[in-house]
């Protein structure tokens, strides 16, 4: 049943331009990393593209701070998750540049 449920996604993925999807992710994660660095946030993810995957991880002060950040995100239509104090954000095909703008606008609030 898991295979049946996954097939629509796999069929969709097979029809996409993989290079374009990767480029979109690189552009969006690059923007997030650049702003996080400027703000002095504790980036957990390597900076060079060749050394990282499609996610950006930022270490916050505590697991509680991470959960509070996620709650604040939800209020503005942003959806991410956390593992302990580490926030994980991974943009993809449906993520828009405007959505990245909203995420970036929320980053300064993570410095506390």
């Amino acid at each position, binding site marked *: 049943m898991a*295979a049946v449920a996954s097939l629509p*996604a*796999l069929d969709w993925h097979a029809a996409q331009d993989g290079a374009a999807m990767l480029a979109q992710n690189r552009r969006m994660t690059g923007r997030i990393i650049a702003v996080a660095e400027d703000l002095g946030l504790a980036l957990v993810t390597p900076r060079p593209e060749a050394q*990282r995957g*499609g996610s950006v991880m930022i270490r916050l002060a505590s697991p509680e701070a991470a959960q509070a950040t996620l709650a604040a995100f939800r209020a*503005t239509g942003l959806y991410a998750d956390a593992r302990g104090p580490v926030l994980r954000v991974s943009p*993809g095909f449906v993520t828009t540049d405007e959505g990245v703008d909203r995420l970036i606008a929320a980053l300064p609030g993570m410095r506390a």
Partner: protein
Amino acid sequence: MTDGSGYFLYHSIGQYPGKVEALSRAMGDFARVWGACDDGQWAYALSQRARFVDRWRAIIAAPEGSVTTCESVTQGLHMLLTALPKDRLRGKRVLVAGDCFPSNHFLLTGLQERFGFTLDTVPLRQGAAWVEDEDLLAAWGPDVGLALITWVSSTSSHRADLGPLVAHGRRMGSVIGVDITQAAGSCRSA
């Protein structure tokens, strides 16, 4: 706002346009076939599974007959371990990085006694967020029966350089597993 614009969970569930409609159709098709009072269930289920396997073979460029299915990453690792010849790992080290998927590490820890191997976990350097490839290489000798490489870490998104790691592992004669969960279908390996 759930229009997808602020969706940043591609390391987890993921999204694509029309997902609700496509998934609803697929589940509806499954229900109609599986609930029918005829004998068409297994042909349908097996054909869907075969198509699923073929889609994955295309993503990872795997030859026909080399791919099977599992319910989770950890179950897949368990299947690999239990498929090895008897005593293949006895007296050997199993090498894994400290930033691997936690449930994989939990599984390997628990299976040491049963399979007779010693789990050797390469640690993160002090203050580091990922295990350096060179540290994994330094710990990888000919006594390593199995090495599990995490291609992209779920805790940092650090991407290991697979080429040199796999080449080294082959020289050492190790069985090499690569956890591709966080990058399959997106990043390219060496």
